[in-house]
């Protein structure tokens, strides 16, 4: 059962005690972090339920909390996956999506099934150093998404097999970038 009240409570406690400013002892800071993480876990179930309801079927949704350091096991290890974007603003939003991947060439299709431009860029050494042993990906896939107001859209990503010439070209591009 999804429940947003755990996160609501954790946020309220954190705000009341100025938790982000560091004006608490370390073991209390650790407790605040634990409460927030527990609250977010519970919210993920709520979001999963909501998305399943909107999409009309149950799905195995995956949340990648470490995307800012390019860690996401699903996208890094799968040859096909979906990126589901939810926009809580009352207007259309254009956003760039970056997902860690292992591969050089991908097909990305938008909600209407059209292929859209995408690029593969290497994960920087800065980021690699942060993610320690958790990074399974070599590169990041980048594409622009358009998300409708107060709604969601699904982009599908497929790793494509490449001919040797294409692979060599892509590898050279990445090598140059690195």
């Amino acid at each position: 059962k999804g429940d947003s009240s755990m996160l609501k409570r954790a946020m309220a406690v954190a705000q009341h005690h100025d938790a982000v400013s560091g004006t608490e002892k370390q073991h209390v800071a650790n407790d605040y972090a634990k409460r927030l993480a527990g609250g977010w876990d519970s919210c993920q179930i709520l979001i999963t339920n909501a998305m399943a309801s909107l999409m009309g079927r149950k799905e195995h949704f995956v949340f990648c909390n470490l995307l800012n350091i390019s860690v996401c096991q699903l996208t890094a290890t799968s040859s096909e996956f979906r990126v589901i974007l939810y926009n809580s603003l009352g207007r259309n939003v254009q956003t760039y999506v970056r997902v860690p991947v292992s591969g050089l060439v991908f097909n990305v299709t938008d909600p209407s099934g059209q292929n859209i431009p995408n690029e593969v860029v290497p994960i920087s050494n800065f980021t690699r150093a942060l993610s320690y042993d958790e990074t399974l990906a070599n590169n990041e896939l980048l594409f622009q998404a358009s998300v409708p107001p107060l709604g969601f859209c699904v982009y599908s990503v497929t790793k494509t097999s490449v001919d040797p010439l294409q692979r060599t070209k892509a590898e050279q591009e990445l090598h140059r970038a690195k």
Partner: protein
Amino acid sequence: AVPLQIENKHLHVLFDPVTGLISKIENLDSGITLPITQNLYWYKASSGNADNPQASGAYIFRPNHSEPIPIAKAVQTHLVQNTLVQEVYQNVSSWCSQVVRLYAGQKFLELEWTVGPVPLDDDYGKEIISRFETPLATEGIFYTDSNGREILERRKDSRETWKLSQTEPVAGNYYPVNSRIYIKDEKIQLTVLTDRSQGGSSLLSGSLELMVHRRLLFDDHRGVGEPLLEDGAYGKGLIVRGSHRLFVDSVEASADLHRLQAQVEFMAVQTVFAPGVESPNHQK
């Protein structure tokens, strides 16, 4: 010797060939060009002095000197240039790096900084800032927001309702920044959107700074009983990664840009993944 540059249809950003730092931002829509330097610095935290035993700590920001120290005067750079994104990677030090990023079609420049673990082997607590310096004649006036709603004018070494005797030239001019800070002259405005609440100030005419990280060795005796000295998961100190978004435009056009973009940052698009693909795809 050839300066690095990145450009989309709205912005052109130039980097100094010697230092590797940003040297100029040109708004191609309005024709405004702003010479600008941005670098990361650190303030040496006070442990108390003869004037006042107050140490810098969780509650109190108190550098022991007014001039911040650059983490590096020149940075190692490399450029990644693609159609959708152009990035300049700046390697500032072993514990500090930054990516200057320009996506196709976007009207702002993104600076993604990664700072930490802050070293303490010299026995100095450190408060790390990102400082922007421009020739804008701002005369100590800058603007900070209150949760994105009211934007307040801040005046260096001054308070609106009483005569201030400034005893802390740096900390006494720092103000909370919830989502944005800006400086402007009669024509040009430089706005920085933050991705989290930070402290910020403008200590020199035309400059603007934001504190991005701090790691301290002393308790400030205001009730915590501990220095702000988090070890993090790997026992070496916390590493923080965040971003600043820069707008350079006319004073008249700036509010329209930063207000809309701040909504996008605050109510950010949520990303969820699922295995497999589907056809037809969904949008609802």
